Structures are given as structure tokens and as C-alpha cells.
């Protein structure tokens, strides 16, 4: 469970470049919620992710995870409970290490790291089992360096690594945006499968409106650091891209700024 209350974040405060990235954000994700986040560039989506994951601290406000106040807890400490997949397929894995070593790193996420061997026989069997769920044949390439994998394979592996320890919340930051359409679809399907399997509480930022509608049970739209639209489960089932664009124009009175959003 995640609860954000009255989150504010301003960049370059007191200079002519001052920009309000997050303006009084209140958001609660209950256990098992899958919320998709859309909005034009500069709406504050990435800042929101960074504040939740602890990369940035909010200027004001409170971040609660599983009922615990984590507002001022460091990024690495918080990541025991947070799974993250980044937009860049290179960002979520260590390229010069093997697949099984990467998985071992992810496996130790919520444990204390010791001087015990990272990859044991028992763990290797477990890694094979979870890799099979990706249907990419990676279970036969446990000793391949991750740098040799394609972008799609790396992103699938990142997704697996972020999720198989069942974190309290999963943050997906445009994790299909850097892939070609067929790979993006593969990752989208895997996301759906994995989130269902572990019943993960998920927050997903996307530029792809169709993806935002297809995935998840709730949707929020952000603009200028504010949440301008919240769609619940029942409404979301009926929602179309047209509706979303119309809704945006109605609220903001301007055409949606992002070309990328219109294209998709």
C-alpha cells in the first residue's frame, strides 16, 4: 500500500527558472491496485516516481509505504520494498555480469547481503523456474553476460528482477517506451501477467494512451504537477482515448500539448 499526502516539489526555487514539479499531490494505492499515469512532458510524472522511490526528497509532504513513513528514508533502504523498471533498457541490469548474477543481486534485495555465495544450486533452480515465465529461453543462458542480450530481453529481465521478490510497490517508468512495437507489446503482456501473478500494487507511467487504458484498474492524468483527473475501476473500463483527450481539453482548456500522446 502506498499513500502520498500533500507532496510538493519545486525545482530551482528562488531563481527565474523556478518550476513547480509537484503541486499538492494526494494519492492512495490500495493493495493490488494497478494505476496508470498519463500526462504531457513536464507534467511531473517522473518527479512523482522519483519522490516515491527516494531518488528525490519532497520539499513538503509525506510518503507512506505499508503504513510506514518513508519520506526521509534513503533510496537504497527504501528499495527493499520498491521494485523499479526504468525507461532505458540498459538501466535496470548490470551488463558485465551474467544473467544468474543479476538475478542473485535482485534476489538479495529484501535480505541482508552476507558473505555467502550469491548463486547457489538451489537459487539457480529457482532462477530457471522464474525465467521460464518470460518465455524467452533465457533459462538456458544463465551464464550469458546481460550486455549481450537485446533491449527487449534486458527489459524483460529487468521486469522479472524488479518483481520476483514481491515488492510492496512496483514502479514502472515508461518501461516500454524505448522498445520497438513488437517488443513493447511483449513487455506489456509480461507486465500484465506478472502483476496478476504476484498481485502487485503498481504505478505505471506511460506515454501510450492505449497502454494506459489496457492495463490496470485505475488511471490518473497529470498536468503541471497536479493530478487533474482520477478514473476509478468502473469508469476506466468504458474509457476511450477520445474521452481522455476531451476530458483534458475540458479541464485545461487547451489542446493536449504532447504530440507523442496524440500519435499513440
Amino acid at each position, binding site marked *: 500500500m502506498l499513500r502520498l499526502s500533500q507532496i510538493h516539489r519545486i525545482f530551482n526555487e528562488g531563481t527565474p527558472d523556478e518550476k513547480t514539479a509537484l503541486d499538492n499531490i494526494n494519492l492512495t494505492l490500495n493493495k493490488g491496485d494497478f494505476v496508470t499515469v498519463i500526462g504531457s512532458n513536464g507534467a511531473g510524472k517522473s518527479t512523482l516516481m522519483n519522490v516515491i*522511490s527516494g531518488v528525490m526528497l519532497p520539499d513538503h509532504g509525506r510518503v507512506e509505504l505499508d503504513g510506514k513513513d518513508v519520506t526521509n528514508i*534513503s*533510496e*537504497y*533502504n527504501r*528499495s*527493499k520494498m*520498491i521494485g*523499479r523498471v*526504468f525507461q532505458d533498457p*540498459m*538501466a*535496470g*541490469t*548490470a*551488463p*558485465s*555480469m551474467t544473467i544468474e*548474477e543479476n538475478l*542473485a*543481486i*535482485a534476489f*538479495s*534485495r*529484501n535480505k541482508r*547481503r*552476507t*558473505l*555467502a*555465495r*550469491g*548463486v547457489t544450486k538451489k537459487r539457480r533452480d529457482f532462477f530457471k523456474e522464474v525465467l521460464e515465465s518470460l518465455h524467452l529461453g533465457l533459462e538456458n543462458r544463465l551464464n550469458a553476460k546481460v550486455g549481450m542480450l537485446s533491449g527487449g530481453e534486458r527489459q524483460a529481465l529487468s521486469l522479472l*528482477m*524488479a518483481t520476483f521478490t514481491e515488492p510492496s510497490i512496483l514502479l514502472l517508468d515508461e518501461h516500454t517506451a524505448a522498445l520497438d512495437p513488437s517488443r513493447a507489446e511483449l513487455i506489456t503482456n509480461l507486465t500484465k501477467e506478472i502483476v496478476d501473478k504476484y498481485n502487485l500494487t503498481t504505478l505505471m507511467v506511460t506515454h501510450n494512451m492505449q497502454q494506459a487504458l489496457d492495463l490496470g484498474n485505475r488511471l490518473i492524468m497529470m498536468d503541471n504537477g497536479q493530478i487533474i483527473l482520477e478514473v476509478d475501476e468502473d469508469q476506466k473500463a468504458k474509457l476511450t482515448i477520445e474521452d481522455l483527450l476531451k476530458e483534458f481539453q475540458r479541464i485545461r482548456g487547451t489542446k493536449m500539448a504532447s504530440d507523442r500522446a496524440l500519435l499513440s
Partner: protein
Amino acid sequence: MFTSIFGAFESGIIYAIMALGVYLSFRILDFPDLTVDGSFVTGAAVAAIMIVNGSNPFAATLTALVAGFIAGSLTGLIHTVGKVNALLSGILMMIALYSINLRIMGKSNVPLLNTDTAMTSVRGFFEKTGIDGFMNGLLTAVGLGDSLPQTWGILLFMLIVTFAIKFLTDAFLKTEVGLAIRATGDNKRMIRSFSSNTNLMIILGLGLSNAMVAFSGALIAQQGGFADVGMGIGMIIIGLASVIIGEALFGTKSIARTTLAVIGGSIIYRIVVTLALRVEFLEPGDMKLITAVIVILALTAPKMIESYREKKRKVKRQLDNLQMVVVSSEGRGKAGAALKSDS
């Protein structure tokens, strides 16, 4: 000739521990750590002063290792907590250590002649075993008897110590903590998202790296019979040379393979320098220049060879294409050939 190669082999295997330390910081952590120039001397100074004051030489060598760990951790602290550029924090620590080393030794040179060092005790122990006599007898038998090494003990002892450190390093880099350190050098953002404190990993990694360097310094001081405040100058480059030569010659397929390559690189580096110094024209003072040239060659030669091969391949492909055109056009008569060669 044989004795000088033997000597090069012997010091190469001791310097290999330093090179393993440099491998840990430079390759695993991706941190160009210049502390090495200082911490090598720190190890030598701590061991020398303790031995001169009557400590057990093995205890003194282990204390040197701890001193190196502290020095490395401090560099890590300056870089992570102080957010100082990696190169600069190493240089700062190196400069600071220069004064600290002088303080430890009390003067710029501490001789270890006529004292009990780790090397003299190993030697003494070996004389009793009779292996020296046997090995030298063997050498005489194959016709290398004109210049015999004084003892085989140090070489064998150091082989055991260096390989023990190599295997410990290999095993450590496969532990959960070791994997986290490797990932820190590989992708910091990733490992932070898997709940590892990258600052702590850098401090720990640099500490271990400099512990090895200081350990090697302590042993070199005991082998050479002195600790000198200037003995660490250019040490980082020697370490780098060993790593690069080793990797180029023996490959980097796995961690175990690479650490072995680094040891091999260190020995080969020593042999190359020894051979170079036998050239009439060169003097012992030219050693740093030779080292720099070796490193430059080791860094540039593989790339140049690769691009030369690439060029050759391209030329060959073009020739092949041309030939194919000629062959196919000959079959179709002159008109076709004229057309093809135009295009």
C-alpha cells in the same frame, strides 16, 4: 641472465598482489584510484617500523594490510560522503599519505638489513628443507649452473600467498556482497534500486583494494631490505600495466581467469623491464619511462592491430567483389563487363 629473470619472476609475483588491488579498484569498481602510490608505501613503512622495533614480521605485514584498508576507506569516504571527484580524492589521499608515511618512518628511508623479516624466516625455513639444493642441482644438470638463485623459498612462499589472495578475491566477488560491489562498478543506478548502499560498497571496495596494495608494499620492503618514502611513485601505473598486459595476453573470460591474467601480467611486466634494463643505453632511472611506454603500447597496440585487420578485411572484400564481377561478366560477354566496371 637466469638470476635476473628469476629475480623478476620473484618480485613480479609479489607485485601481483598490488596489481590485484588495482584490478579491484580500476576494473571492478571502475574507480581510477591513485591512493595506490601512497598506500603502497604506507604498507612498507608500517611493516618496516614494526619489524625494526622488534615485532613479529608476519604480524607487522598483517598490520600493514589493515593500514592500507584504512587509507583506501578514507579515499572512499572523501569521494562518496564528500562528493569529491574520484581522481581528485585519490590524489588528495596520495599526497596526504606522503606526509603520513614520513611520520610513520620518522625519516625517508628505513633499512631492514640484519633484522628478522618474513623473507629471512621463510629463507631460513627453506634452507632446512633442502629444496634449494635439489632445485639448484637440477638447474646445474640442465646447464644453467653458472648463476644460481640464492633461495627458492621466497618464490614458492609468495606463489602460495599470491594464489591464496587470488582465490579469496575470486570467491569474495561471487558472494552477495561481492556481487553488489561488482554491480556498483557496473551500474550504480541499478544496484541502488536493489537496496544496496553504493557509498558503502565503494568504501569497502577501495579499502580492500588498498589493503592488498599495502600488503604487497610490506612484502616488497622485506624482500628488498628497506622501506623508502619514494618507493610508491608510479605504482598505480605499474599496477595498471600489469592489469592491461595480463588482460590482453590471457583474456578476461571470467573473474578467475582475469585475476590469473593480472598475476601473469605483473610477472611479464617485471620480466620486460628487466630485459629492457639490460640494454646498454638504458639506465635504472629510465624505468618509469619504460613503464609509461609499455602502458601506452599495451593500450594502443590492440586497437591499432584491430583497425589494421579491419582495413585488410575491407580491402579483401572489395577485391572479392571485383573478382566476382569480372568472373560473372566474362561469362556474359564484353558488353556486360564494360557496364559492370563502370558502376
